[in-house]
């Protein structure tokens, strides 16, 4: 496979995953903003921050409004994580790698690809739930088309590697935001407000129902952390994503009959995570654990690019 094609597949999957994650963040923001006392807490700032690059755009001390967040996260082409940017870039990647996509995958990306061009912030806010549903449907259709139709060749592995990496990062960033914004020092851990904020994170990751089934309806920060970091059955947990990365990269090593730095790193990531339990995470510090996870996933992304001659 052409290196450029592999790179396009990898990034296409990342952008689709990111578009969906950003859509979920907007839902989370809306949920949190209607909770009592929301405007004191600058909830939208935490949402913007979870995308990883909002702090440059929104200086501290100025309230981030819903309008700001919707504009920035949904429509802004200068924001590489906005839904519009992600969908446009995913389509451009798909167009360049078209011969590797099934017709259904292409159609999932191609249908209505300029839809968001016609919206201004006012309209987008008004129709936010419908737009978010539209984005989620696009991404799920795309994922389903890949799942049910794409050849299980290396192209598929590059695609799945991209989505697992992006997913791991999003879950880590959400946990980090939780640490920064949702755990004010004055608040007692496990307090009432804390409860809402943690559950909003579960909602943002579509994990609320699954969490109930696993932990039986009680919310504690350590259980939720356990669920999002270490649960091997929840497909958006860090552990699950790391397992996927290891599995996909191993398959790629098999296709190519050679291993690179990325294979060493992913093995390390999986092993390190296996040493942890939620008690250990809080002893070391959630922030520290998450930061080290983000460092490792970034490093892994760069190593994958080098191993397979991207760029």
């Amino acid at each position, binding site marked *: *496979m*052409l*290196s*450029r*094609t*592999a790179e396009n597949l990898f990034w296409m999957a990342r952008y689709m995953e990111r578009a969906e994650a950003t859509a979920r963040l907007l839902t989370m923001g809306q949920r949190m903003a209607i909770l009592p006392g929301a405007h004191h807490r600058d909830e939208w700032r935490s949402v913007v921050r979870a995308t990883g690059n909002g702090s440059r755009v929104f200086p501290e001390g100025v309230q981030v409004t819903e309008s700001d967040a919707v504009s920035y996260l949904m429509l802004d082409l200068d924001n590489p994580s906005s839904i519009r940017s992600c969908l446009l870039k995913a389509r*451009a990647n798909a*167009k*360049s790698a*078209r*011969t590797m996509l099934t*017709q259904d995958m*292409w*159609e999932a990306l*191609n*249908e209505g690809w*300029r839809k968001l061009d016609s919206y201004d912030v006012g309209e987008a806010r008004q129709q936010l739930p419908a737009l978010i549903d539209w984005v989620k449907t696009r991404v799920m259709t795309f994922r389903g088309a890949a799942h049910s139709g794409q050849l299980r060749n*290396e192209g598929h592995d*590059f695609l799945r590697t991209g989505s697992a990496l992006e997913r791991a990062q999003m879950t880590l960033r959400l946990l980090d935001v939780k640490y920064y914004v949702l755990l004010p020092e004055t608040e007692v851990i496990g307090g009432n407000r804390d409860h809402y904020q943690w559950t909003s994170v579960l909602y943002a990751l579509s994990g609320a129902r699954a969490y109930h089934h696993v932990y039986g309806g009680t919310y504690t920060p350590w259980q939720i952390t356990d669920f999002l970091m270490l649960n091997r059955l929840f497909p958006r947990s860090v552990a699950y994503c790391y397992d996927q990365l290891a599995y996909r990269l191993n398959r*790629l090593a098999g*296709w*190519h009959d050679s291993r690179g730095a990325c294979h060493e790193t992913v093995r390390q990531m999986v092993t390190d995570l296996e040493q942890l339990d939620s008690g250990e995470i809080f002893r070391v510090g959630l922030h520290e654990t998450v930061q080290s996870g983000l460092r490792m996933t970034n490093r892994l992304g760069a190593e994958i690019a080098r191993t*397979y*001659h991207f760029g």
Partner: protein
Amino acid sequence: MPFHEMFEPDGPLRPCYAEVQSWVERTGIAGLNRRLEEAEAIFRRIGITFAVYGEGGDPERLIPFDLLPRIFTAQEWRVLDRGIRQRARALNAFLHDVYHRGEIVKAGIMPADIIYQNSAYLAEMADFTPPGKVYSHIVGIDIVRTGPKRFEVLEDNCRTPSGVSYMLENREIMTRMFPELFGQGLVAPVDDYPAELLKSLKEVAPPACKGDPVVVLLTPGSLNSAYYEHSFLADLMGIELVEPADLFVDEERVWMKTTLGPKQVDVIYRRIDDEYIDPLVFRPDSLLGIPGIFNVYRNGGVTLASAPGAGIADDKAVYIYVPEMIRFYLGEQPILDNIQTWQCGKPDECAYVLEHLHELVAKEVHGSGGYGMLIGPKSTKDEIAAYADRIRANPSEFIAQPTLDLSTVPTLGPAAVVGRHADFRPYCLVGKQIRLVPGGLTRVALTEGSLVVNSSQGGGVKDTWVLQD
């Protein structure tokens, strides 16, 4: 009145359109228009578009599609088939000649300056013979019909004729939407084309190639207006679609960068222009090129299809001599006629053209896509005068042709079937053998009376049927 392909001059239906006529009656015009909307939605979803630069609006536009097929009888096709193959052979023989001994010039049939002063002539190709002596591997010949038995060639496209994806997709959509029309097996299939193209390309593998040739399609990239076609063809042939940056030269061979490391490439079906191929030989400012590839080509390490320099054969000044080429190289009488053409480079012909500009179609010799032409009868006095000034300033850059009584083909209008002018481009494949699928691209002017069928100027496309005996 121009010849109407569906109706005889005195009115009755031509028999080859009987099936279509009864289908139109069964479905009704309104019904057909509804189906047309469905068809367009499908085209849009699949992404069959071409890119348009710098005009604002939709950067990826649909080419208007017309539901009513254009039909050739088996007998008509036999003539066209022989004529097209003959022309493709002569053009390739000509290309070999101009890059070697130049016999046609020595014989006094063509003036030397038309060839050797031409910007499409590449001195770098002199004395080199590409594999199989093939220069133009896909010859697109634009043909118009001017009477019941009269077909004339408008121009030859020896470099990178585009549009073949529409031939295939138009058929695909017609069989998808109207399976009953194809149920009786009356229409000759065209879906062999990609397989035939791949065979032709493999047949011209370079001397250095051992084993099954690796063929790739080289595109400038996803912003190119014909990118859809490039990816579509690569897909149907099951070959890699590469961009220039995916290729590099090492040790006298060409390689593509893969996740497994470099992989050797034997045949490149390139859809980028000559001048961008190799910055070491042609344009040094080309960011698209693959440095050193031309040298590898000349040393037999890779085949470029079509060959650099093949464009000399589709130059409009050279076109005039194609019937002579057929006689000279093949010793045959031309089966398809040229359109009468005046060369403004010749003083007496130029004088005639300037005097009759209001009734002629004048074109720039190097122009393409319908740009830079003047349609005399449809132009104002001022436009004609301005064009005449351009001709006088640079006569050898212009030719002129009579305004033809182009046939009209049945086309779906909002309320009725109407006649619109059309041309036809078949795609002749040249490898060790010559291959031609029964069909091609029919382009139709959608405005009443218009003669301009180019997609860049609002023309549409329709399926082309060759009926089987």
